[in-house]
């Protein structure tokens, strides 16, 4: 992207479904959906997405960029898991061996995963040795949140729906074309029957929320879950669109498919 390009900007944010996950994992790289969509729309891409981002980070990264620009062609939010927490950290830039500069403004994590990960490592530590996974700010915050039930589905859904509606309102207020979609599954994957119980709660929270009839057609797949007539991009991905059964992130075909979904909706709504 030229610094002096007069092309409109495609501003996107999201989690690993939006960031260059293959590059992060040192896998063979391919064009990601943001790049493909920018090419189709003849816009310059500004990709604010980062692997692991929570919805708070997605919302703030987008709004801060939106409010300081006047050359926006399209804004796309691909939302993440509702129970991820995000903290503004403003770390110093990290200079990687391969020459990349990584600037981390947000520290995001899923408290339940942090605790499960730490507990899994317990077996390798015999007292008086201490499990190093059970130290540090992330772990301390995760334990505190979980002990006080502050990372439950209800609070995650309430917060996330608020960000989704706020983003829609900001874009409408500033006459900015925008699209939103749920990217990965909104809840952490669990085995049955717990998964069904949790998704039922998730759907009920959406139905009973004040946002249920406030989201416009620009939210692709609203109200997010197939049980109530919505969908996430993840629920539309087939096996051929994913890296493997273990790593269900979208592969090259998956990213191409996602870019087509956005392009079709953009044409339908804004052309």
């Amino acid at each position, binding site marked *: 992207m030229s610094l002096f390009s007069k092309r409109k900007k495609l501003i996107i944010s999201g989690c690993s479904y939006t960031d260059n996950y293959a590059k992060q994992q040192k896998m063979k790289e391919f064009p990601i959906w943001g790049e493909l969509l920018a090419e189709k729309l003849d816009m310059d891409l500004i990709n604010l997405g980062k692997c692991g981002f929570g919805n708070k980070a997605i919302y703030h990264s987008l709004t801060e960029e939106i409010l300081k620009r006047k050359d926006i062609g399209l804004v796309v939010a691909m939302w993440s898991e509702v129970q991820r927490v995000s903290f503004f950290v403003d770390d110093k830039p990290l200079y990687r061996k391969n020459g990349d500069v990584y600037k981390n403004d947000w520290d995001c994590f899923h408290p339940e995963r942090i605790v499960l990960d730490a507990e*899994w490592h317990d077996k390798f530590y015999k007292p008086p040795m201490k499990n190093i996974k059970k130290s540090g700010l992330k772990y301390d915050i995760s334990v505190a949140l979980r002990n006080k039930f502050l990372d439950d589905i209800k609070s995650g859904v309430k917060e996330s729906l608020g960000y989704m509606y706020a983003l829609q309102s900001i874009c409408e207020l500033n006459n900015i074309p925008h699209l939103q979609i749920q990217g990965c*599954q909104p809840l952490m*994957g669990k085995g049955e029957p717990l998964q*069904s119980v949790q998704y039922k709660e998730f759907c009920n929270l959406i139905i009973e929320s004040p946002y*249920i*009839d406030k989201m416009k057609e620009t939210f692709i797949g609203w*109200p997010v879950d197939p*049980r109530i007539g919505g969908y996430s991009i*993840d629920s539309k991905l087939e096996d051929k669109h994913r890296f493997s059964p273990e790593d269900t992130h979208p592969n090259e075909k998956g990213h191409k498919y996602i870019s087509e979904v956005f392009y079709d909706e953009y044409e339908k709504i804004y052309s």
Partner: protein
Amino acid sequence: MNMKRFILKCRLFFSTIFVRYDQKQEKGFIYEFDDDRFKKLSLEEQGIQVQKNWNKYMKDK
């Protein structure tokens, strides 16, 4: 309750009874690691492999 909410509640009720949703189960996190070769290792060997894996991750990073 407005009509939309009522319809969605009904839809949710019937879909949870009659429809089975096949969602991809996560397997990528270490606590979900389900490899038979790893399971057969002694606890000490498992620890060494985890440490090696972590060292490689940190080196690549």
